[in-house]
């Protein structure tokens, strides 16, 4: 094993020329196209930005330079599994996986053998960490988001929710279900639900069903993403329904905010908000100055926070040994992040973090509505 590692390190040094034995090699799955691209793209940009900053200062904790291996998965799970294997063969000691539960679970099954710590860019379905003790979430999990969002909905006086979910992914199925649980626990009622398929051509049938529901819901909750959410909201508003719509963090994209009038007033949960003077606002300024692109959603800063999580785990472990890093990561309590602080200790490795609720304005901006950490008493369990 030891010989193999040394041999591999020398091989990399010989071939790559830039890698040294003491480099910490992080493999990154990043979908450049397909349904994950809107999330993987920004997350990777933020991650790379902060890794570059750290490398400029000597590496993780100023001592351990990071070498990134990045591979495109085209949002294809089978290809994802293949690139993870390739990255492990190339010596990756940490894997950052795509921004959804399903590719992360697939990747984690490959990394399980050597207990290589594996962290998803923004997968939020809490089931994803059940693969093993080496798998980590980074973004506030769906059950945390749903709990805070349900609290917000109840604060606003909503009583009857209609859930629109898709069994095609853990995210689209779980989010609305957690919301339903938390909403009921807070005294609301689930009056109905509809199922859709990912990339469903047409949502008019669902909209008509909702339109004719008795009792009529006063809030509709879906964890649908692009292009399903735009299609759904257009069909809904097109049918003359102005019921409040709420959703998960996948709505935090410029595409959704660019839809115009139909999304005005839509509320969604997310992981942070760049309040003036905050570390997050500072990150936005630095990132914009360095890259010329303004980070217009939370996946950028969350990507950066992944770099901080890795740095703090390596510091706590005092070594880059994969199993030790995993163990140290799982023990982090109130770690310093830019989007928000994070606690892995006493969770099932989905970090407990602040959840922010925002609403979308008619001119396509985000308006801050609420910041809260999910109340463990009503947090639905996966």
């Amino acid at each position, binding site marked *: 094993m030891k010989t193999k590692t040394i041999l591999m390190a020398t091989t990399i040094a010989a071939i790559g020329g830039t890698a040294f034995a003491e480099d910490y090699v992080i493999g990154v799955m990043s979908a*450049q*196209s*397909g349904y994950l*691209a*809107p999330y993987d*793209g920004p997350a990777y940009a933020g991650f790379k930005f902060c890794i570059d900053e750290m490398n400029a200062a000597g590496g993780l904790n100023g001592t351990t330079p990071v070498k990134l291996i990045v591979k495109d998965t085209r949002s294809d799970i089978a290809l994802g599994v293949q690139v993870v294997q390739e990255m492990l063969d190339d010596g990756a000691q940490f894997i950052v996986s795509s921004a959804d539960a399903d590719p992360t679970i697939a990747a984690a099954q490959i990394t399980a053998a050597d207990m290589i710590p594996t962290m998803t860019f923004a997968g939020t379905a809490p089931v994803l960490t059940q693969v093993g003790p080496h798998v980590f979430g980074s973004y506030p999990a769906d059950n945390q988001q749903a709990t805070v969002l349900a609290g917000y909905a109840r604060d606003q006086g909503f009583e009857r929710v209609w859930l629109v979910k898709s*069994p*095609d992914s853990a995210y689209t199925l779980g989010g609305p279900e957690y919301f339903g649980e938390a909403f009921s626990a807070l005294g609301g009622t689930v009056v109905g*639900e*509809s*199922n*859709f*398929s990912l*990339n469903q*051509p*047409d949502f*008019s*049938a*669902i909209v*008509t*069903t909702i*339109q*004719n529901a008795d009792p009529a819901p006063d809030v509709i909750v879906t964890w649908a993403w*692009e*292009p399903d959410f*735009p*299609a759904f*909201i*257009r*069909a809904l*508003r*097109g*049918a*003359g*329904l102005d019921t409040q719509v709420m959703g998960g963090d996948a709505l935090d*994209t*410029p*595409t*959704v*905010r*660019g*839809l*115009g*009038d*139909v999304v005005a007033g839509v509320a969604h949960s997310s992981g942070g908000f760049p309040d003036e003077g905050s570390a997050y606002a500072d990150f936005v300024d630095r990132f914009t100055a360095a890259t010329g692109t303004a980070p217009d959603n939370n996946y950028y800063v969350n990507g950066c926070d992944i770099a901080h999580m890795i740095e703090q785990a390596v510091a706590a472990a005092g070594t880059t040994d994969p199993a030790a890093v995993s163990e140290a990561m799982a023990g982090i309590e109130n770690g310093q992040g830019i989007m928000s602080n994070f606690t892995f200790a006493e969770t099932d490795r989905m970090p407990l973090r602040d959840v922010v609720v925002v609403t979308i304005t008619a001119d396509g901006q985000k308006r801050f509505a609420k910041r809260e950490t999910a109340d463990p008493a009503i947090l639905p369990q996966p």
Partner: protein
Amino acid sequence: MDVLLQQLINALSLGGIYAMLALGLAIVFSIVRLINFAHGEIMTFGGYGIFLSMAFGLPPLAALTVGIGAALVMALSMERVAFRAMRGADVVSLLITSFAVSEILKVLFQNGISARPVPISFPSSWSGAYQIGGMTIGVAPTVSILVTLISLATLTLVLRRTATGMAMRAAAEDFEMLRMLGVKADRVVAVSFAISGLLAGVAAVIWTAQRGSVDPLMGFFPVLKAFIATVLGGLGSLGGAVQGGFVVGALEVLTQAFLPDSLAPYRDAIVLSAVIAVLLVRPDGLSPTKTGARS
């Protein structure tokens, strides 16, 4: 009762889009024996035409016109660049060529525009609703149905009443014979692609107006359904393609609306099983092509 009526309107609206796409596929297939897998990209290109012209500040109606024009241009260039050289090749070679065209275009869209969906924001007045006898009906599905019916009626009129239409119908029946009468092949083929492009453009307009975003895969999924519709209707049969489109759209909406939630994941399977069941009874589709005995 109201619910059923409203769902029927939804079914008509979706079925109409499938019908236009299926008709576009059928017209080209009937003449050049090409199952054009890149038809979806014609539609997607139309969507990007709308997006780009709105990004450059064109008013929505003008943008929609540009979208239809873009689809038309794409269809014609596809024929000129990719398929003319393959004229007369067997069905499989043509199919593979169209796969290649489809993949190339998807990659171009991803790299040239965006892998992510781009938003299209239409005026809010376009997403209103009105009441008829206590029933709320959306403006968008209504307009969609009207536009579909007008397009199909116009096309029928062109096919029935004009010399070009006559040539198209004859070409669908026996293209070689038509050529032996001295009618130029290039022109008839170009017209068939133009018609299929126009139909895809109109479909793109309705589709983007209803969905609010365009992504590189936008045309892929509806065209997949349109393929099923053309097979259901009888490959190469124009009337059959339209029928098939409406049937597939209706099945899709009605299964969504009235199947219990526990069966929801099997929806596509149920729709496809229904199609297979029809094909078992009528192997040549709902209205098979009338081809004379050919030696």
